[in-house]
């Protein structure tokens, strides 16, 4: 079948979005031809994968080295009780195939490291940062810059979320343009358990899928902004105009104007602090 054609059943499956101004047959074919990699199949990755798959993105990569745990299920809605113990990437892939058997799904059951990042990410058009730690966020940003791909980045904590597309177009900043110096490990609370409400990750992950679909179909206006979400504030959403690419950025700056060296970055994950032991608390109360 030619690249300009869709199978008949796809017209029925995607009809509700194909009649939208700005999508149409052309947009649907772009979605089918697109490949997107989601790094992290957790609270953000699950809803992002769900709506990317449902919309008909042709190829989805899933990178995650963790296995499903009971404590994930309050927000990671592609996993389930009977999948506890299996790799999250595998569990998410099964759910994605159920949502849309037409998607090609590739699982990468490994941690993203400076050794494998470029190899894994090079195969995809767009990268989604759905991770849960600062070092991987820097690694993903630096890799997206090297590969010249947009990075649709989500983050969520407690009742708050943030969303930004880094390395967007000619002039969009990278993560390092905004945050040149990684916070010292003590400052990020060594990933101590801060808590998170599932619906908050759902909203941010969903918005990541939406921004990705806008990028693929050409509906994005190309202006980088930072979206802040706070579930308990009014108004809950705030859109921020952000700086352009910094010529002095160590990662994406201009040749000869760069200051600093990203090769010095120690991406080794420093996560793994203790979690409040609710099981012990429970047995005390129960």
């Amino acid at each position, binding site marked *: 079948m030619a690249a300009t054609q869709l199978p008949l059943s796809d017209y029925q499956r995607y009809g509700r979005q194909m009649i939208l101004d700005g999508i149409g047959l052309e947009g649907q074919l772009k979605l089918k031809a697109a490949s997107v990699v989601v790094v992290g199949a957790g609270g953000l990755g699950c809803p992002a994968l769900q709506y990317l798959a449902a919309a008909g993105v042709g190829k989805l990569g899933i990178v995650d080295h963790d296995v499903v745990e009971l404590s994930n299920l309050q927000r990671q809605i592609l996993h389930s009780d009977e999948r506890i113990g299996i790799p999250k990437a595998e569990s998410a892939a099964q759910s994605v195939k159920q949502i849309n058997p037409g998607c090609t799904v590739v699982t990468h059951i490994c941690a993203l490291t400076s050794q494998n990042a470029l190899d894994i990410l090079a195969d995809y058009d767009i990268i989604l940062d759905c991770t*849960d*730690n600062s070092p991987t966020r820097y690694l993903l940003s630096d890799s997206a810059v090297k590969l010249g791909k947009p990075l649709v980045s989500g983050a*969520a904590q407690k009742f708050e979320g943030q969303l930004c597309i880094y390395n967007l177009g000619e002039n969009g900043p990278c993560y390092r343009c905004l945050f040149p110096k990684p916070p010292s490990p003590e*400052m990020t609370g060594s990933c101590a358990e801060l808590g998170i409400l599932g619906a908050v990750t759902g909203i941010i992950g969903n918005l990541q899928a939406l921004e990705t679909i806008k990028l693929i179909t050409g509906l994005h206006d190309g202006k980088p902004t930072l979206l802040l979400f706070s579930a308990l504030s009014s108004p809950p959403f705030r859109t921020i*105009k952000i700086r352009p690419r910094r010529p002095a950025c160590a990662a994406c700056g201009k040749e000869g104007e760069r200051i600093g060296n990203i090769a010095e970055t120690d991406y080794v994950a420093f996560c793994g602090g203790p979690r409040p032991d609710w099981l012990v608390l429970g047995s005390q109360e129960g």
Partner: protein
Amino acid sequence: MASLNLKIEFGGGLELLFSNQRSHRITVPAKVPASSNPRDGDKGLEEKPADVTYLMYWLRDNLLKEREELFIENGTVRPGILVLINDTDWELEGEGEYQLKDGDEIVFISTLHGG
């Protein structure tokens, strides 16, 4: 003396340093000593219009309840904090040298890592 009314917001966990309160309304003088940090001593007679650097020290001295090192580092906000002036990244507005205007809304937000 003329003064400026400002709306201050903290987010991304920074509010924990400020009585766990996200929104604050404050009033600061329109003209301030040329050296923003009161701890520098020797204020002299020189004055400047109140700017964001002055505000940062003012917040430290008047609203911050704990762990100053999580807010200020080397004379600016610590790495990982973004300052937003009326919904615009402060880097587009002159960073610490932005001169405050009556009614401005300044947001200090910490970048989130979770997912």
